């Protein structure tokens, strides 16, 4: 848009352009209609979704993959409520999003008008902040503030609710005077990124002295773009690293000091090393219950250094010995500088290293091999996918067993290659998130690893992918069940299976995929897996769905039962009798 905006709608589009927005995921409707007109003349590409939740998750996938804020725009009422799940998801995983919602005209607010809902009220607890704009003149400033809040400090979703009359050129309320310089007015928002040098020095001293230290790395490291600094710190100090579900890829899995994922379905070594540690250095991690297990039995001997951009995380779950509020990259760089200047100490960690390698030898990730007559092994499917795709493939996943297997069996050697719903655990996240990632990174191969329960929640976005030209690939890990719930019922409810069986034959995923313009395949035989993946990798003009028929009985191991401590990690049956 090149002319000077004269009304709120034009101003909104110009303000988004000025923020560098290149892609907008959305779906028009009554209240937001006037904004869709100036959009035609804009440099911004709009991606028309099939459901507003999809727009939110696409914006999230885009943000994860690119590091830039994802932007969604939808109308009022049901559109706003449809995107609430995606906002809550982004809130829990600290994903920078800006969501524009239409609202009924100012004069109609509070009258239960058609498609009216209290969008800012509903989304107050699932956004970092939200705005209801009541004056067209305020639109440019509010958009600037929304992007600033979404992307600084601890990132998160920000919603801007815009009544129709202030963007409708036929309404005098929309009149405004555009200026290029707008000042933000946020007297209560001053995110602090600087780290306290005294805290860093004390942390470095503890790290030098520790005999059993573990770096507990969370998603904050990725948000802070600190993967490179982290690698320096690790190589300098020789301290082992665990990467949480939100941090997979923040440190390369193939590095000898990487122990992989901790937590409820973490591998034995990562979980046990944290339990046995005498020092945990938490970097951008929040001691989530899925990581700690029962909190009173978590890492009993460990002193704790906790570094996070969000001061409220420090002491929220556990009281750290050293709490440092600030940006993780600055903190890691400051630690590196301290070790450069003062050395890395001479703590004897040889016994610790040999215990770790002993655990790694005895307790690798393991599953029973496939036998004739069986359906596919889901872990094997993921291993083949891992080995047959490029190193920098972006993997998005849904939520459930397939998500855990993907996180466990993939080899994440690059940051920003793993996109999933960690905090909220949103089934159906994979397909729209993969589309958002592909939209942001068109030159990269993007695979969604999805479950059949998840697939049925958001599969319609494959229509979006086909029509808009985002050739993502979907590995459907199809066991005909809500697999993770089935696993809990098998292990903790005496195998009494309640409402977890979906259907063996319905839907026909291959036909469904084809009807949405995708290449559809079905694989039942292990010998067909490689050929199907290879074929999928070669297709770049449309999305691909491979329906992998896998064993329903397969369980995710290891597992810390809910309510148990991490000492009570259940290992696969083949490892049950080994000495720990």
């Amino acid at each position, binding site marked *: 848009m090149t002319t000077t905006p004269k009304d709120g709608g034009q101003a909104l589009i110009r303000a988004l352009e000025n923020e560098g927005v290149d892609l907008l995921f959305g779906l028009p409707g009554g209240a937001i209609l006037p904004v869709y007109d100036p959009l035609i003349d804009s440099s911004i590409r709009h991606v028309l979704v099939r459901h507003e939740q999809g727009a939110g998750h696409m914006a999230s996938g885009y943000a994860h993959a690119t590091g830039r804020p994802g932007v969604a725009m939808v109308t009022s009422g049901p559109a706003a409520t449809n995107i609430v799940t995606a906002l809550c998801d982004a809130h829990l995983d600290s994903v920078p999003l800006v969501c524009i919602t239409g609202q009924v005209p100012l004069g109609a607010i509070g009258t239960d008008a058609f498609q009216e809902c209290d969008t*800012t*009220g509903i989304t*107050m*607890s699932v956004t*970092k*902040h939200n705005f*209801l704009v009541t004056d067209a003149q305020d639109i440019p400033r509010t958009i600037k503030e929304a992007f600033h*809040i979404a992307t600084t400090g601890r990132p998160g979703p920000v919603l801007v609710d815009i009544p129709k009359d202030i963007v409708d050129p036929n309404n005098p309320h929309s009149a405004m005077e555009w200026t290029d310089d707008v000042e933000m007015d*946020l*007297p*209560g*928002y001053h995110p602090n990124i600087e780290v306290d040098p005294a805290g860093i020095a004390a942390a470095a001293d503890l790290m030098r002295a520790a005999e059993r230290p573990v770096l507990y790395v969370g998603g904050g490291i990725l948000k802070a773009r600190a993967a490179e600094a982290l690698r320096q710190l690790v190589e300098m100090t020789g301290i082992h690293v665990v990467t949480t579900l939100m941090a997979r890829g923040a440190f390369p899995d193939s590095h000898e000091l990487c122990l992989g994922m901790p937590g409820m379905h973490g591998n034995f070594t990562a979980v046990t090393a944290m339990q046995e540690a005498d020092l945990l250095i938490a970097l951008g991690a929040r001691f989530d219950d899925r990581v700690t297990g029962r909190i009173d039995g978590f890492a009993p001997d460990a002193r704790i250094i906790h570094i996070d951009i*969000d*001061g*409220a995380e*420090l*002491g*929220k779950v556990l009281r750290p010995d050293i709490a440092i509020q600030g940006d993780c990259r600055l903190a890691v760089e400051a630690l590196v500088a301290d070790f450069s200047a003062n050395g890395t100490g001479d703590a004897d960690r040889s016994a610790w290293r040999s215990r770790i390698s002993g655990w790694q030898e005895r307790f690798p990730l393991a599953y029973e091999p496939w036998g004739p007559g069986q359906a596919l092994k889901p872990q094997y499917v993921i291993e083949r996918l891992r080995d047959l795709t490029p190193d920098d493939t972006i993997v998005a996943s849904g939520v459930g067993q397939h998500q855990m297997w993907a996180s466990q069996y993939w080899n994440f050697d690059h940051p920003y290659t793993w996109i999933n719903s960690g905090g909220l655990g949103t089934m159906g996240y994979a397909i729209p998130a993969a589309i958002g990632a592909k939209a942001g990174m068109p030159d990269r191969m993007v695979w969604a690893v999805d479950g059949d329960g998840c697939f049925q929640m958001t599969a319609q976005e494959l229509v979006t992918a086909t029509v808009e030209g985002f050739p993502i690939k979907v590995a459907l890990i199809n066991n005909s069940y809500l697999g993770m719930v089935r696993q809990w019922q098998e292990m903790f409810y005496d195998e009494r299976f309640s409402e977890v069986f979906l259907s063996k034959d319905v839907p026909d995923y291959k036909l469904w995929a084809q009807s949405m313009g995708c290449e559809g395949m079905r694989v039942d035989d292990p010998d067909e897996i490689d050929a199907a993946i290879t074929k999928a990798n070669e297709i770049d003009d449309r999305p691909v769905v491979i329906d992998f028929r896998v064993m329903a009985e397969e369980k995710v191991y290891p597992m810390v039962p809910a309510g148990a401590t991490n000492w009570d990690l259940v290992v696969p049956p083949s490892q049950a009798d080994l000495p720990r």
Partner: protein
Amino acid sequence: MNVAAPEYRYHTLVVTVENKAGVLARVAGLFARRGFNIESLAVAPTDDDLFSRLTIVVDIESAPLDQVVKQLDKLVNVVEIRELHPGYAVERELMIVTVEAEPHRRDELVEHLDRAGGKVLSVGTDSMMLSLVGPPKRIDEFENLLRPFGIVELQRTGRVALAALDGEH
């Protein structure tokens, strides 16, 4: 930040917020969803129209005070939070109360009222409406004194507070 002395169950936070629509809902919603209990809440604009001040009395047995403060601080519209240690705050509250007051008991009632420093706002045939401004503890005591007379209706404002000046308790 002051650390709460263990003998005090309640702490007072004086919170300066932007004077904008919905800010009180954000504060109240935060307390509700994080499971923090509010003992009392008073809110009014400050001398600067752009800002309002909330005096929030927090039950610190429901959550550590520093969690309450840090979470409040994350609200974009919250500009400043001052924690007033109970020993170092000047706190006042207003109570208006209608008490049963048959003519033969009025002298006794007024005696109590005078000693507490309260005022008679209105007199009915067999009841009186009184007001008292004072530290919350004094209001509590006066309320207890009135109970035997028979309280018809009572409204307290919740406390407002400012930091004590040098050395004052």
